């Protein structure tokens, strides 16, 4: 087993401001960034604030930015950095800081509340649901989401544009609309709810210009843009002309060939 000293710069502070602080800290074989943050807490700075739960990439609590890139602290192995590299850890930029690496993510919970829940089909009782695997798979992909909010953090529509937050649900919650829309038994339409229209008119789908940054940072490798956002734009287009869909399709086709 080999051990070395790594150089870390961690953002310390709160809503009133803060700064990057330098630490030198021991690193062991096979460790992830969260292990190193824990060692900092145990040996140098016990009040360093960080969120985490599972340390297994399953709960989406430990989101932060490592060298400026949105990532899960518990799934970023130290071996992806060179030993003399300075590793900078900062809180997610799109959300207000609470303390150190912890941010106020209530924006996301507010957006979640704005999306109407699953509407059960009338006359189908518990135990009577029948769906084919092929038909549930599309929504299942989106339900892999661990709500780490890294996609929300990275999306340029809100990342540096506080003013857009009101009108834009962000990729995670636009994807939630898509998930319900593609659910084989969701009876929203029968109940007078047009999910696609609300995506456009209430949740800000139009702001998305399919840059795919959200897809790139998703730790669950969900194809947010290709499988959720673009198809929804296409469906909206049945009613409305959206030049970006045309552009998106062209880009996709070019990539595929």
């Amino acid at each position: 087993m080999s051990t070395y000293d790594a150089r870390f710069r961690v953002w310390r502070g709160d809503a009133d401001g803060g700064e990057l602080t330098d630490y030198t800290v021991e690193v062991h074989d096979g460790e992830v960034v969260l292990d190193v943050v824990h060692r900092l807490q145990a040996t140098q700075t016990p009040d360093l604030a960080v969120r985490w739960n599972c340390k297994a990439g399953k709960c989406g609590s430990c989101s932060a930015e490592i060298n400026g890139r949105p990532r899960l602290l518990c799934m970023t192995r130290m071996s992806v950095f060179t030993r003399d590299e300075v590793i900078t850890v900062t809180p997610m930029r799109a959300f207000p800081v609470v303390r150190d690496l912890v941010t106020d993510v209530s924006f996301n919970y507010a957006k979640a509340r704005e999306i109407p829940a699953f509407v059960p089909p009338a006359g189908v009782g518990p135990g009577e649901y029948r769906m084919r695997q092929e038909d549930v798979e599309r929504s299942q992909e989106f339900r892999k989401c661990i709500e780490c909010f890294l996609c929300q953090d990275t999306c340029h529509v809100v990342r540096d544009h506080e003013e857009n937050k009101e009108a834009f649900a962000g990729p995670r919650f636009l994807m939630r609309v898509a998930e319900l829309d593609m659910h084989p038994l969701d009876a929203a339409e029968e109940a007078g709810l047009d999910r696609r229209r609300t995506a456009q008119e209430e949740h800000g789908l139009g702001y998305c210009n399919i840059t795919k940054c959200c897809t790139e940072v998703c730790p669950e490798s969900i194809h947010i843009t290709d499988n959720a956002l673009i198809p929804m734009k296409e469906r909206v287009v049945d009613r409305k002309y959206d030049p970006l869909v045309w552009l998106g399709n062209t880009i996709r086709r070019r990539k595929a060939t």
Partner: protein
Amino acid sequence: MTHVEREQWDVVVVGAGGAGLRAAIEARRAGARTAVICKSLFGKAHTVMAEGGIAASMANVHPQDDWKTHFRDTMRGGKFLNQWRMAELHAQEAPERVWELETWGALFDRTPDGRISQRNFGGHEYPRLAHVGDRTGLELLRTLQQRSVGLQQEDHRETGDHEGRLKVFQEFTVTRILKDGDGRVSGVFCYERESGRFLVLEAPAVVLATGGIGKSFKVTSNSWEYTGDGHALALIAGAPLVNMEFVQFHPTGMVWPPSVKGILVTESVRGDGGVLRNSEGRRFMFDYVPDVFKEKYAETEEEGDRWYEDPDHNRRPPELLPRDEVARAINSEVKAGRGSPHGGVFLDVSTRMPAETIKRRLPSMYHQFKELADVDITAEAMEVGPTCHYVMGGVNVDSETAATVGVPGLFAAGEVAGGMHGSNRLGGNSLSDLLVFGRRAGLYAAQYALSGVGGGIVADDVEAAAAEALAPFGSVSGAGGDHGPEEDAGPPENPYTLHQELQQTMNDLVGIIRREGEMAEALDRIAALRARARRVTVEGHRQFNPGWHLALDLRNMLLVGECVALAALERTESRGGHTREDYPAMDRAWRPVNLLCRLDGDGIALERTRTEPVRPDLLALFEQDELAKYLAEDELEGLEGGHGA
């Protein structure tokens, strides 16, 4: 006087995992204004980590499955120590609880005819686990979370307020249950992580749904939250814990690299065909089938392999024995020098299924090994070893209502409750337990709360709770406690150090194989740690301060650690999750014995009680010779008398 803000609710649910959310949904449906409190963000509870599935005898894959078979399997898995009425209700109600999730939007994997698919798991006679790949817990928790939000949307439409009837207090930690002058529950005391401010929620009924205790052990599959808070809260409030010696060590945790040691490798790997081998390449589980299970498991590899395709005419492979058996077998192989390079054994799917099938059926395992260990499980074997996974012991509850024994108004459901799983839990039986008893706890807590009982908060108790919570900021001066100055003498202590020492103690001395001398030593060490814990000192201020949070959690972990060690020392037999090297056999005389832990002054007092006799019609579901393997002599006599007439 510290000023502490107060709010009034009918039911307070402590915990937003599967049990807590199901309880909250039911309590609100029953008309109670319900508050849910959780330590982490909403939607992050430990339940998201559950992988393999949820057990319910829906008979979608095997038509012969029914609640009776599920009940039998559960009792066998628990070596008949289960609170049998819980096991019965669980088996009967689990299918409804799973189907209900579909009406709230859950998307389980499907059978070819469009029903919910079910997979094999250790100890279950038929394929019984509803699942979504290997992220079933996430699906369950997200569904309950989204259902809760859906209810808030309904309330908003009706009243203009999202949170009037169901509100989630996220990142709040409860440190005390409050009671009125007559000993009935009157609320909870908690602090907010973000600000450090205190809050009292007044309510006549409180449901504990705080999950398990794994963070007291060094090698564990459990998350940060598993510090045994609910167990300790119940003890302190005056409710006993039952059978705390039973801790499940899951046979397959990752063993390398060190930083991920303990992370779970789901049992579905074996359920779907993965096999265990030692360093000599032998499928050693065939050497470890205990007598009580001899007739039910394959004797040759060929038969075991045929079972996956034709379960009606072959017996299952011994890799699918209940977890305690497999964990002990792995332990023995490693001890005998037949382990893998990093001190585990090999778990292999790569030679058993095509790579594409592995990636489709076990996506998160594929991902986990690739990302964390640089191992491609489609090409090579995994290295695995036992990891602390689940606590069968817990708050002693009434089987029907989930009410705790002894504290009116206090309920408990989910992993924090004891009894349901006896001495060992079968895979998949926890998620179903959460739903069945979460619902019951919510229902009965609401009924109790709405019946108009309960008095007020005692102001002194709030003061005491606040002082206790603030103690770590001023320990050295002895400001926070009611203990004598001698006990306070000594250097300030670091909570992280104490936590690590406790974890090491539990792991080494009260772990998977137990010995009398070691457990006695564990108790000495825990006592010493408790004394040192009084001097825990933390730096910084109250705003989101992890050192402070850990200092407060330590009280709970130490109490729970002591209960586990005491009960384990007392039970002089091996049964399920409790294995004694000095008493290696199951002893039928211990079958009808429950061990209760209560708080007595500063320490824990143990009490032996006799379990309620199993109802005859339930016993009649088993063959006589099978019962003879489990039941105590006097229980069998009664039985023969009853039946012979």
